[in-house]
């Protein structure tokens, strides 16, 4: 069986090579911080959660089987950890400012954001955070993994241990909710057809 590079690193770590774990950490640190940030909307707390995930990964390494894709193994740990943290009720999305008005899409961040662009980007970020907070847990996880982390439907199905059609349905419902919530940011200012 040909292992993907991450799985090979995990196996090397299982066999006693600590540098393999460091490489895994370096490869996935950024995406883990970003993933956790979608749940807590706080940079410092997102880093702490991401570190927790890697500590759990370190402990869980002996139980890793190369038959499981490393990415889905990692995201399963991360998903469970983020949900557990959220269930403790301590980390809601930060209160969002009202965003009922249509915004100038041209002002959304580009390569060099002006203060106005940054303000619009922040408003969009808060709207998405509020949306995520309202979504049921599985929809939220599926949506975040699909839209922000780039996981495929098949990978998400593995992480959540559900069928691909179930993932399709979760992502569809979450995207419909996003269409509603983010209508003020749409080019036509929310005039959905």
């Amino acid at each position, binding site marked *: 069986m040909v292992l993907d590079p991450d799985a090979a690193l995990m196996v090397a770590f299982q066999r006693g090579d600590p540098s393999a774990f460091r490489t895994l950490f370096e490869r996935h640190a950024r995406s883990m911080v*970003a993933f956790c940030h979608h749940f807590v909307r706080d*940079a410092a707390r997102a*880093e702490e959660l991401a570190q927790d995930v890697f500590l759990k990964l370190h*402990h869980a390494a002996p139980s890793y089987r190369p038959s499981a894709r490393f990415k889905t193994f990692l995201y399963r740990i991360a998903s469970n950890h983020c949900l557990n943290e959220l269930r403790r009720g301590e980390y809601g999305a930060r209160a969002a400012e009202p965003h009922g008005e249509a915004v100038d899409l041209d002002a959304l961040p580009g390569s060099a954001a002006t203060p106005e662009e*940054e303000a619009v980007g922040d408003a969009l970020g808060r709207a998405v955070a509020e949306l995520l907070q309202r979504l049921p847990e599985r929809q939220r996880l599926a949506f975040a993994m699909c839209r922000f982390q780039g996981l495929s439907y098949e990978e998400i199905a593995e992480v959540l241990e559900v069928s691909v059609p179930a993932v*399709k349905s979760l992502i*569809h419902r979450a*995207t419909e909710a996003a269409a509603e919530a983010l209508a003020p940011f749409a080019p036509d200012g929310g005039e959905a057809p």
Partner: protein
Amino acid sequence: MSCVREELTALCDGALEPAARERVEAHLAGCASCRAARARIEATLGTLARLPPPPEPSPTFAQRFQARLARQEDAPPRFLARLPWRYLAPLAAVGAAAAILAGVGLRERRQREFLARHLDLFESYEAVASLGDVDEADAEVVAHLHELEDRP
């Protein structure tokens, strides 16, 4: 056709099998409502794509993680840490209480054996009192026991 609506997001994500994609696209060709729904989804995905990037890990992120990892590896053996102390703590408390009770029981048993061996010593109130285990009220009762002997 709600069955096709359910497929529209997967279509926009490129996640449909070829046969399903063909079926949905054929439906879209003749359904303005579903085309509008697809446009709405595409607009939403466009908006999401323009979100500001998430924060980068801070420069000390990796260093702090390595410190946490090192501290954890220096912690007591993992099997101790993995024990479910939430459940074991009450058991440990019960065990400690049992040990105390057993100690008290053993002490009382030794006292009884001591009394049995030296019963003659305790016929004397003064001898008992000399051990310091007699309180004032008991001493008064004992002091007047002889008065009872005179009663019919």
